């Protein structure tokens, strides 16, 4: 009796599946030609942005009207000494050689250019001891042509500097982030070669109007991350052999709560099947190996004209916060990826060794096979063209996009650089918290460092204790990297940021 019932159920399910399959294949698909049709207008309204000024010139950093002094740094000298001697408007040329230092740039309008002589570069070697190669908080900063290796934290990290250009650098095995502009507006990251990073090769954090192009990123946990950022274009990059290729998402618990208006186009995204070597339990440590593009909770992400092949879990994974492992919920962040727009992409040989969760999801649509596109959780107002080309799950109900390309959008960089960020003394704690601490600490979740909520419990009435710790941290947790000293911040600033941190509620 029981077994008969089961057989009946199986037959009904089978009939449904067959119906879905044959029914689906008999309809002629709508083929959309992307060279015709409307162009996407983007999500950035220049006229509404008080920072944006009209001009015919385009660059992230202000064009110089007066050329400053040029300081030459030779092998055996330090770049930092040159930065100390420099005035805004000056250029620092670094000759080939090996430099073992951290370069802090808190002045505006400094350009640090490595001189490449017959293939020999200025090399910054952290020797596994130093944390950062370049830390800049000045505005209008340029860094070019370096070889950076063996730092524990970051190759190049921006801390609240606006208008930056980071290009032509080779970065190998430098810890947590290769290039990490945090809390910056109007910046370019291009022509860099980055590998061996245990979180993200390029991490655009809490920033606006960013252009990431022509980078070669491989053998990292995450290739390129657009995180809690808006108006970003990621194009013409070569992204392969990472755990996850290109990611646009919201990390819950950061001070800036949104990611939207991101265009991912014309990239090669292939064979991103690297074993995940991020810290277990951390958010990035939970990315399934074999993810070409990950869109988590971010809105209005356009995916167009990429070549996406050989990513074993899936080509494009779209998820809300609730279905993502290792992610805590932030009531202040919308957890759903809304307005995803998938235009034409070449997708081939993805999802050939996918995870059980995806297989189970496919069964709900009576599908089997190797998925190019997987959507899990809630999404609203998303659209796709030429969906019949892909093995997909979760996109059946999506609309046809009303446009077929993004040709109308050249760049989200501003015509004229934004005004330098001026920090009111009363805002010191906040800016340092957003620009420095939030790079590794979220309020409730595990990123690189422990959550702020836990720090609040440990130091509940002791901001001085936090200030002292950040000046000279000690290793306290086996499964977290050691915190780098923040002793380049003066004593007053350290106390201000400690007090600000302990007062946060989200």
């Amino acid at each position, binding site marked *: 009796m029981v077994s008969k019932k089961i057989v009946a159920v199986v037959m009904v399910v089978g009939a449904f599946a067959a119906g879905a399959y044959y029914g689906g294949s008999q309809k002629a698909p709508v083929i959309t030609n992307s060279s015709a049709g409307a162009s996407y207008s983007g999500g950035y309204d220049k006229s509404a942005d008080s920072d944006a000024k009209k001009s015919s010139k385009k660059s992230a950093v202000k064009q110089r009207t007066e050329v400053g002094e040029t300081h030459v740094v030779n092998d055996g000298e330090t770049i930092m000494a040159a930065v100390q001697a420099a005035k805004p408007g000056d250029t620092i040329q670094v000759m080939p050689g090996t430099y073992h230092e951290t370069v802090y740039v808190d002045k505006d309008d400094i350009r640090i250019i490595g001189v490449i002589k017959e293939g020999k570069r200025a090399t910054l070697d952290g020797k596994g001891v130093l944390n950062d190669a370049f830390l800049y908080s000045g505005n209008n900063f340029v860094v070019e042509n370096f070889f950076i290796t063996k730092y524990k934290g970051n190759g190049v990290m921006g801390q609240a500097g606006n208008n930056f250009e980071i290009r032509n650098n080779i970065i190998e095995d430098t810890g947590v982030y290769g290039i990490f502009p945090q809390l910056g507006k109007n910046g370019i990251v291009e022509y860099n070669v980055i590998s061996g990073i245990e979180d993200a090769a390029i991490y655009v954090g809490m920033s606006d109007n960013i252009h990431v192009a022509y980078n070669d990123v491989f053998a990292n946990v995450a290739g390129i991350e657009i995180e809690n950022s808006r108006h970003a274009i990621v194009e013409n990059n070569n992204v392969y052999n990472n755990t996850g290729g290109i990611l646009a998402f919201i990390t819950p618990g950061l001070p800036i709560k949104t990611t939207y208006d991101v265009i991912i186009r014309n990239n090669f995204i292939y064979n991103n099947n690297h074993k995940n070597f991020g810290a277990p339990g951390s958010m990035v440590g939970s990315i399934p190996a074999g993810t070409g593009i990950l869109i988590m909770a971010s809105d209005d992400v356009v995916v167009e004209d990429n070549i996406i092949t050989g990513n074993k879990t899936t080509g494009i994974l779209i998820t809300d916060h609730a279905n993502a492992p290792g992610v805590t919920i932030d009531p202040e962040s919308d957890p759903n990826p809304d307005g995803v727009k998938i235009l034409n992409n070449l997708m081939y040989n993805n999802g050939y060794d996918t995870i059980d969760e995806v297989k189970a999801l496919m069964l709900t649509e009576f599908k089997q096979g190797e998925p190019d596109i997987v959507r899990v959780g809630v999404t609203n107002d998303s659209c796709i063209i030429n969906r019949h080309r892909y093995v997909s799950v979760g996109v059946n109900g999506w609309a046809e996009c009303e446009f077929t390309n993004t040709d109308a959008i050249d760049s989200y960089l501003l015509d004229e650089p934004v005004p330098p960020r001026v920090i009111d003394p009363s805002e010191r704690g906040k800016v340092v918290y957003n620009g420095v601490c939030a790079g590794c600490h979220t309020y409730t979740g595990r990123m690189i460092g*422990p959550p702020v909520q*836990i720090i609040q419990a440990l130091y509940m009435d002791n901001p001085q204790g936090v200030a002292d710790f950040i000046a000279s941290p000690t290793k306290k*947790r086996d499964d977290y990297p050691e915190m780098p000293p923040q002793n380049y911040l003066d004593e007053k600033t350290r106390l201000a940021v400690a007090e600000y941190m302990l007062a946060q509620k989200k």
Partner: protein
Amino acid sequence: MSVNRCYHVVPDKVIFFETVKIKAGMFFSITLLNKVLGILLFILALVLAFSFSVQANEKLNVKMPAVYQQCVSCHGDVGQGNNLLNAPVLAGLSKAYLTRQLANFKSGLRGSHAQDTFGNQMQPFAKALDLNKDVPLLVAYLADLPTVDIKQAAKGNLKNGSRYYQGKCGACHGGVAQGNEAMKAPKLAHQHTEYLRRQMKNFTTGLRGNHANDKYGRQMAMMAKTTSGKELEDILYFIAMQK
């Protein structure tokens, strides 16, 4: 010898339970109290019988110090704890954590709140210990004992438990609940879920971690208040799944 100890222990408990009843005036009727005591005695007997058999097991190369005899009836001869007696697992906890807790019970930082029934129960034992002589012997024995495999009855969502464990607990108690002495955070794996749940409630309601001088207890109380309900159950399930 153990039997004598047993007789010694039980009258203490009788007095203790009556005190609680009069003081707090709740939880137990007299008949219920008698029943509970009956069950307790029965269990004690079982535990003792069981413990003799385990003691005979020669796999253990850690020698029990005499001063631990008085703990056996509740916490078990190999620190395995006893859920029915609300006695936590002690085996494999760090020396520093055990020492701190015994000192806290002795000084009254822990187990003083009138409603902390089981903490109240522990205090007289700790008060009788010499912190310099007895405690080092006890904690050296317990810290070296192998962890206990517990059949956990906990249920929950592992994925959700993992994300909130990592978000709220792991930074101090370790990614796999192994504890971290640098953070003064005890191991949570291999502990009874019921005990952990009760301590979370104690921290949340101010029965534990409420004393101005109990810095680490206050830290824990602050974090305990950030979770409850299904989220907490999932966290407990995640911990129960750690081996």
